[in-house]
């Protein structure tokens, strides 16, 4: 009885809604959204809330789940979706300005990436570079700090990377460059093989955000003697990229404001993942050694800027952010970035 009454009420509500809504009906825009865990993933849930909010900005959005980000990116390129959500490195080919936010060592803390996301939202000038041609990046979502996982926790200096086998993602230009630079051995891998290669001992080192620690059972590769270097290699991000002519004119500004306001909500999923790594597995790097790592990261960034992989303007913005937060950093006195 109660159920039939509620159904009747729902039907009535729907009818009322329908009559009010008909004139305002807009075309539904599709965003191909990558989350490795699909519809039940943490990030896909966040995107569901975002899509609802976007309704009030004049865009009716449907999120379509993808568990393969290259397929999502290709479907976006082919015009099958009006927008795409994927990691910054995957979307680098569309515009290297936002993807450079994932540059090696550029944002060493969650505080620094939060500051950047808020700056993008706040300043038109910073946001301007998010548009390139017909596409625009309208959201930067933190996906977690990327850490080096080492099978031998004695490897905690730059010099000790020499001769070590490092699994690097096949679509990532920066990490192989860095590994070669320090005399390491690049072992190409993809998301499907990086975990098994590390766990089976085919490589000595891999890099990943903590989100992958549980699902890839990286504790097996760490064993008793391994660890996770507590100096983020980079900040992984999910980025929302759209065909801007399909969306309302001010969509980008509103969307960036949304993600800035919801930064900590997104970060909470990341922090949960970080917390899954047992305390004893973290390898703390003392400040003097951290300076070595920082110097290496900076060299790699500057060299990759020269090769066109990183965007110089974005590198400069991130340097300003780092130095704003920590004026004592050695790099604050130079003009390399």
């Amino acid at each position: 009885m109660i159920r039939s009454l509620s159904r009747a009420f729902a039907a009535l509500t729907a009818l009322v809604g329908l009559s009010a809504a008909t004139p305002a009906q807009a075309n539904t825009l599709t965003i191909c959204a990558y989350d490795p865990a699909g519809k039940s993933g943490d990030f896909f849930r966040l995107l569901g809330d975002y899509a609802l909010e976007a309704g009030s900005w004049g865009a009716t959005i449907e999120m379509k789940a993808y568990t393969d980000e290259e397929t999502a990116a290709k479907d976006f390129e082919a015009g099958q979706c009006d927008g795409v959500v994927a990691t910054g490195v995957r979307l680098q080919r569309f515009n290297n300005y936002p993807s450079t936010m994932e540059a090696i060592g550029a944002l060493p803390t969650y505080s620094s990436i939060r500051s950047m996301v808020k700056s993008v939202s706040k300043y038109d000038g910073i946001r301007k570079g998010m548009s390139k041609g017909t596409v625009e990046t309208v959201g930067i979502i933190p996906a977690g700090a990327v850490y080096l996982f080492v099978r031998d926790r004695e490897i905690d200096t730059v010099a000790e990377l020499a001769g070590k086998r490092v699994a690097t993602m096949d679509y990532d230009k920066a990490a192989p460059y860095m590994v070669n630079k320090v005399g390491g051995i690049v072992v190409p891998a993809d998301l499907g093989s990086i975990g098994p290669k590390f766990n089976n001992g085919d490589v000595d080192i891999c890099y990943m955000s903590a989100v992958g620690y549980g699902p890839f059972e990286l504790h097996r590769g760490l064993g008793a003697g391994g660890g996770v270097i507590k100096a983020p290699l980079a900040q992984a991000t999910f980025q929302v990229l759209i065909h801007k002519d399909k969306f309302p004119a001010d969509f980008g500004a509103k969307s960036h404001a949304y993600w800035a306001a919801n930064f900590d909500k997104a970060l909470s999923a990341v922090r949960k993942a970080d917390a899954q790594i047992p305390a004893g597995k973290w390898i703390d790097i003392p400040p003097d050694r951290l300076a070595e790592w920082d110097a290496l990261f900076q060299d790699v960034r500057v060299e990759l800027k020269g090769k066109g992989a990183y965007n110089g303007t974005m590198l400069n913005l991130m340097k300003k952010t780092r130095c704003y937060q920590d004026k004592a950093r050695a790099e604050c006195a130079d003009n390399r970035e």
Partner: protein
Amino acid sequence: MLSHAQTPCRPSHVTSTRIAGIGAALLLSGCASKIDKLTVNRVVARALTVPDVDQSCEIGVSLRSPLAAATKEEKPARKALLISEATAAMCDEVAAWSHELDRARALSSATGLPPQLRAIQAKDAGYAADRSHQRAAARYDRAWKHGLVSFGDIGEGDCPKLKSHDEFAYFITLVSGTQSVLHDSNSGRTLDIPQERLLKVVRGAECLRGDPDDDGTVDGKKWFYFPEAVQAAAWATIPGSGPEGVDPWDVLEEVGAKGEGTGVRVARGLQVTIAANAGREDIVAEAIVRHAAALDAHEQSASHALLDRYAFLLSLHQSDLMWIAEEGYRTPAFGELPGAASAPAEGDDPFGGDGGGDPFGGGGDDDPFGGDPGAEPTDVPPSDPFPAGDGPDSPAQEP
């Protein structure tokens, strides 16, 4: 390998319990192993023959506390309890599905709600679904943990030695392990159930594969190909977790088809669920059609009708979500896909013969609506992001 204690029972009250009924027996016997056996061999065996998920889940809800009270706290009837928790979780699962349909209806363009109402209704239904998923996850989690105590650390080391009446409890433990992770994810990870549990289930499922019919094939036929299906489901969900060169979607299709012949289509239901989660709508649509065809082609198992009904509900839910998204209402007839009815049936088009040419002349080249120019991003460098006064030297403050 079995870690549960096989303590001898005191003289039992079995005779009187038979008279007084199963429920009283559970309360009075006071012996964990006896209650476990009675639950699996009698209560479960009978319940499995009735294809009524609502009824079984309510029994699970009702029996949990009496079962817990029937034994000493430190020696509970774990197998009975795990089955009770798992079946109770199905009530929450059904409730979560209902809320998910409400959410889909609010979001459906067919429903045509204005943006604000759409968002409010979708959020409310979403939060309601989260709560149901959370409770389902908690119950499945308790079931999984009872299973771990009963059978050891599943997925690590050797398989437990399973007596015939243990196998069903072990099977339900694996189902519970999988479901606890999936429902926790769907609730927004409110319980933080470790996702690597899925891989423990994958390894644990190997213990249900065998060759009971001595036909030389080691497989999960006895368990309706669930072991293979749950393994492939995890491989499809966690990149790199499966054997090299094996496409998990191919495995899911293969065991989905094989499982149909058993009259318990759990492998097919799982295939539909996992494909929907991964956004593989092509696979979902095909598998639903095949599931529906199998209902006609193969009789439902009499001994495990409940499991087959549950599998049907898994597929029906995804079908309902598709229908509501497109049409605003749930599946009119299982196996029909939205949009399919409006497409002309083969042979209905009198002009669609050789070459499919337009009988009124048009060649196709002058189609004014063809040839979308596409949208290649141009290679325009980003403009200077530092116009005067935009404050590049002062990034936003920390909140």
